[in-house]
């Protein structure tokens, strides 16, 4: 029982990072039909932005979160203007954009490697404190990760459901063309999508950095898990991505009660494959009419 609770807490923490990454990637996919293979590296860049603010410049941790958010959102907007919009206007197909983003992920990851080298980096954060709650221990970092993610998720949910921008985003995800005809300023919505998706990636990168360590590979390594989370939750549904991320984190940590921890990732991927075979529309999805 203790072990179950302990692994549940660990799973919630790592699942939160998957979920944050997944929600951002899912938003971009839902609205722009871009399967962004550079999303993991967006996260990594967020980690390094936080590193620069927190360690190089010596500013407080809270400021470094802002640094991560701003830098990655800006990168999202920059790539939109330089790459994705021109390509969409030229009628590029889904696979063409996917492979393009794959190329960009090479570029970004290795520019990061070029700039900061391959050493592992850590932020100035208290990574030893933990609280004894009787039957389980929870570290300060786990508390930060879970609380920050939860707050971010609630904020995103409110934004999508309550604000005009959020509603426009959902309209665009249903049909870009229809939204355009019905007078929604699609360009502005796309801008907000990159700010939100990029910001979430930056935040996820920051949390991944304080929770583990930062290397140029950090986000890339998490990317497959993030895809898994999105598919588990049902593609294009930000709420589903949240559920998928948490499910993945929990299942991976629970699996350590049965298998060696080194199999943790393999178990996550196996769950993904099984889910796809038996619930191809995601854990929350419904069958749709085809043909």
């Amino acid at each position, binding site marked *: 029982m203790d072990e179950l609770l302990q692994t549940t807490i660990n799973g919630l923490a790592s699942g939160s990072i998957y979920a944050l990454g997944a929600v951002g990637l899912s938003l971009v996919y839902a609205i722009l039909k871009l399967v962004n293979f550079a999303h993991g590296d967006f996260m990594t860049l967020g980690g390094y932005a936080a590193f620069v603010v927190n360690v190089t410049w010596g500013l407080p941790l809270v400021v470094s979160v802002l640094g991560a958010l701003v830098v990655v959102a800006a990168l999202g907007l920059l790539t939109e203007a330089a790459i994705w919009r021109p390509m969409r206007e030229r009628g590029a197909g889904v696979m063409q954009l996917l*492979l393009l983003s794959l190329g960009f992920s090479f570029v970004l990851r290795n520019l990061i490697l070029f700039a900061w080298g391959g050493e592992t980096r850590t932020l100035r954060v208290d990574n030893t404190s933990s609280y004894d709650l009787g039957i389980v221990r929870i570290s300060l970092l786990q508390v930060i990760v879970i609380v920050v993610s939860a707050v971010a998720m609630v904020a995103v949910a409110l934004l999508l459901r309550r604000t005009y921008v959020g509603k426009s985003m959902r309209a665009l995800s249903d049909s870009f063309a229809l939204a355009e005809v019905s007078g929604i300023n699609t360009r502005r919505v796309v801008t907000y999508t990159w700010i939100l998706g990029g910001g979430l990636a930056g935040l996820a990168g920051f949390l991944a950095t304080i929770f583990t360590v930062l290397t140029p590979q950090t986000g890339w390594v998490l990317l497959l898990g993030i895809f898994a989370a999105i598919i588990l939750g049902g593609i294009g549904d930000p709420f589903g991505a949240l559920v998928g991320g948490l499910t993945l984190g929990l299942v991976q940590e629970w699996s350590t009660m049965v298998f060696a921890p080194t199999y943790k*990732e393999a178990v996550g991927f196996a769950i993904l494959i099984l889910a*796809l075979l038996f619930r191809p529309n995601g854990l929350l999805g419904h069958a749709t009419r085809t043909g």
Partner: protein
Amino acid sequence: MDPLLAFGFWAYVLTVAGVYAVFVLGLQVQLGDAGLLNFGHVAFMAVGAYATGLMITNGVPMLIAIPCAVALAALFGVLIGLPTLRLRGDFFAIVTIAAGEILRIIIQNRQDETGGTLGLRRASGSWRETNNTILDWFSGRGIELDRRVPLLVITWVVAVLVALLLRHIGRSPWRRALRAVRENEDAAAAVGKPVFNLKLQALALGAAIAGISGVLFTLLQTSLYPENFEPIVTFIGFSILILGGIGSYFGVVVGSIIIAFIISGVRFLDFPLEADKVAALRYVVVGLLIMGMMAFRPQGIFGKREELHLDG
């Protein structure tokens, strides 16, 4: 030493290019002909390599181990394909990459059998002795060869044979049906083409070819490590495919040489930079090449734009 004169080094780079060429010919069958976006292709190479290595280190003669390893890679393709080929293209891509990662993690963890991260040593068995015999035979006739030449020749002979074989069946009704499936499964099914079987055959054929590249890789490296088979290898394969041209077998050959030169070759050029910075820049160049190709010439250097299908 002038790097351009270091023959052994260039022989090595070209051998690597040859291994990649075979590997990517497998991808070409899957993506170029059947439209299957297989992001876990490196797993088939891993099966070919580790099956060879494990059989050889357990005393199976090399000439038996190699065909068995290739067959196992094909079988692994069938195994992966049976449950997953009905999935949407992008789901299939994610599932194959996940399956590849599961295999790699298992190899890494089964240290007793595979050596795990310590590596599977002497996986190429008596290849070194065979190689020496070949060299001696030539030097007995007054020809002194670099020790890397025999494998270089073997690798490229294999690559060319595989390419010729693919071109041979490339004109067949089988490939016509496959191209129809790639473009529109419903249209193919409506005139009675067995969509699922065709895709499975293409996947298994591509897997077998990747298995061959795994065998060659084993002979080249002599020791196998799980990190040799990370997803990045598949993506380098995709860069080659995109550069050379989806649908063009000849493009694969040229693309392999260019990419192998960028990744392994520039190591010898003198840059006033630290080694890992140069390493990073190599991949920046590869990434920029992919991006530039996708943006301006998605059919690659040798592909036909009219026949390119990238909407799946």
